[in-house]
């Protein structure tokens, strides 16, 4: 075979790389397993941070909206009160989307994950 030497050398290098990768990882991501484990860990941490921040921001947002609506009522502005109520409903809707719809969408995406087509 004309390219036999290249094939053997490349195969040796790749075999060692793949073997090293499988020893280091949990077997889920192949040679990219260690990097993938780190990225997944960071993503989990980031998810927790986002959830906490959403709770804080939603609480503050609703308080601000209630304050605005109350201030509007105080000076007789019905439009301000209406806008404040709509804001509260919007924030609640966003929180519902974040905590109910997004996990379901993520599960759907995970189920759609395709195998390599080559």
């Amino acid at each position, binding site marked *: 075979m004309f390219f036999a030497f290249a094939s053997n050398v*490349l195969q040796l290098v*790749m*075999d060692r790389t*793949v073997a090293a990768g499988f020893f280091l990882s949990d077997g889920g991501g192949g040679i990219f397993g260690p990097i993938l484990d780190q990225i*997944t860990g960071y*993503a989990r941490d980031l998810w927790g941070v986002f959830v906490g921040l959403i709770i804080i921001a939603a609480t503050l947002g609703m308080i601000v909206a209630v304050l605005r609506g109350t201030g509007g009522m105080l000076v007789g502005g019905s439009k301000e009160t209406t806008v404040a109520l709509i804001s509260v409903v919007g924030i609640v809707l*966003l929180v519902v989307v*974040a905590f109910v719809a997004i996990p379901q969408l993520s599960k759907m*995406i995970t189920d759609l994950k395709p195998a390599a087509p*080559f």
Partner: protein
Amino acid sequence: MGDTLQIILNVLRQAWGALTLFIVSAAALAMLAKVLSTVGASSIGARFMVYESLATIAAVVILVLVAFVGIPPIVRAVATSIPGAPGCGPITELGTFASGLIAAIAGVRMMLAVARTIGGAAIGGTAEVSQALIEVVEALFGMLLVGMAIPLIAMFFTGGCAQYQLPKSGNPFWATPTY
């Protein structure tokens, strides 16, 4: 060459798997990050609308659907359309090797383009569907061009086999065919 091709394809398959997992995590984070930015803006009094957040979520879902449902059939189509073994001798081996690799590299590159866009959206950027699709088409078209060029170059520089020869019309670089 066949064993080497299988090993490289294995590595590319693992890269594909890692990219799909990354896309799943980045998409979830991108959707949550957009909701957080909208809720955060409303907490300081800005009047952001709910639909802005939902539009970004829809863009991320569309991108993921394109990546997970659209790209695999495209890669299969590319793999079947690339000529496998032009010429003869070592050129045949190289052609088989290249045709196996081209589809795999195109698939990983297309998935990488989508992963980059969704990763950008996960850290607060915008999910630009058009940019990702442009990169996908670039990868596809580039790999198809390469797939067409391989047999032509093989025939041009080596002479190839008699049944694959191009017309010799005065070309000084045309190699003498060896039978």
